[in-house]
């Protein structure tokens, strides 16, 4: 079965290969195989598969990864617009819908 992929060329993921020490943590935490390790450095190889969850950036001990992370959730974005806050889906436990 073919793998699902969302829109092309939209994600904000950036990797500074210079400061990368090749620890491979980003590869371990990425749920969509966005990174690959070669020549003792991580590389972004499947950018369009990134869902901006932010796990790689948070777990990079070198701070080499930047991504504007958040949930890709239309209801959350509408909530954010209506309440004038950051996009937020109702995962807090008080709402019923969860992304």
């Amino acid at each position, binding site marked *: *079965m*073919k793998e*699902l*992929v*969302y*829109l*092309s060329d*939209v*994600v*904000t993921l950036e990797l500074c290969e210079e400061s990368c020490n090749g620890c491979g*943590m980003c590869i*371990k*935490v*990425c*749920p*969509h*195989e966005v990174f690959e390790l070669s020549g003792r450095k991580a590389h972004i190889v499947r950018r369009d*598969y*990134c*869902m*901006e*969850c*932010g*796990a790689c950036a*948070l*777990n990079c*001990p070198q701070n080499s990864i930047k991504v*504007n*992370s*958040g*949930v*890709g*959730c*239309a*209801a*959350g*974005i*509408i909530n954010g617009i209506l309440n004038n806050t950051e*996009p937020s*889906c109702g*995962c*807090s*436990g*008080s*709402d*019923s*819908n*969860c*992304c």
Partner: protein
Amino acid sequence: MINKSYYNGSISVSDTTVPVVLDYLGYKDYLGAIMVRWGINRNNYRVNPGLYAVGKPNESSDVFVTANYKLTFDHVRKNLYGIDGWILVLDTKGVNVWCAAGKGTFSTNELVKRIRSVSLDKVVAHRRIILPQLGATGVAAHKVKEQTAFNVHYGPVRSSDIQKFVGNGYRADKEMRKVTFNLSDRVKLIPNDFMYGKYYLLGAMVILFLLSGLSGKGLSVADFSTNGLTAIVNVLFAYMSGIIMTPVLLPFIPARHFSIKGFYTGSMVYLILFVLDFTGDSLLENFSWFFIITAISSFLAMNFTGSSTYTSLSGVKKEMKFSLPLQIAFAALGVVLQVIGKLI
């Protein structure tokens, strides 16, 4: 200690009593899972945060960290079948690991706090804790190490791979690390999504039912009885198109935008209703129903981005900028045409 149906006695470790939980599920767990999938008691389906045991763990046993959503907790203990281990439950306000990590409740701070509050360093002699991979969105492994000396090992995405992961020498292979979104994953989400929009569904049904009774002579009871039912059926089908058809057929519908996928399924549903003669006699009425059905279907399909496992915030924002105005325009146009069609 309160006795829960999934408790199986307790053991004492370093001056505290730790509840032992069953490594299999009972009928109450299955019943609870079905109800929670339908949104019943969903916000209160929790276990107490803290330390639990499965089997007969000792100081060298593994520690598995999870969320306090009971559905999640049940998956973990069931998949630890036959293993002696510790389960450390974080307080995620009853939310699953991935959502809680995104929300910041399954977090570095909460993990560090919980490790300290249960004195994990006295319970086990090693310094190894196993986290679900999807918890990485909220936890920085190197910071946990700094603050507690515990080494975070990110395990598999699915708890069903835990035993394989442990047997592999705490290494998750490629397949274990990857999030999938196959048919059964998608179908499980449908009941909750269906219940989520129930008031909007009823609202839309009421509005279009009322419109169905409208004519040049004002509201008439006769028109309600002839057209009211078709109005309700059309709205219900549009709703199901967005909530059921789009998720089920997701990989097979061309287009990457969820709103366009929903527009396609909505168009298909419109065609079916047209053939069944549910979309009115005049061209105006037919256009009206086409706009209304595709708008509803497209909007609901777009909301499924939040349930999916591969959409990004930037992508959804981009999609909405183009789709939301169109959906609103379609819905408004549909209602206006409906009114005009009734009055002329």
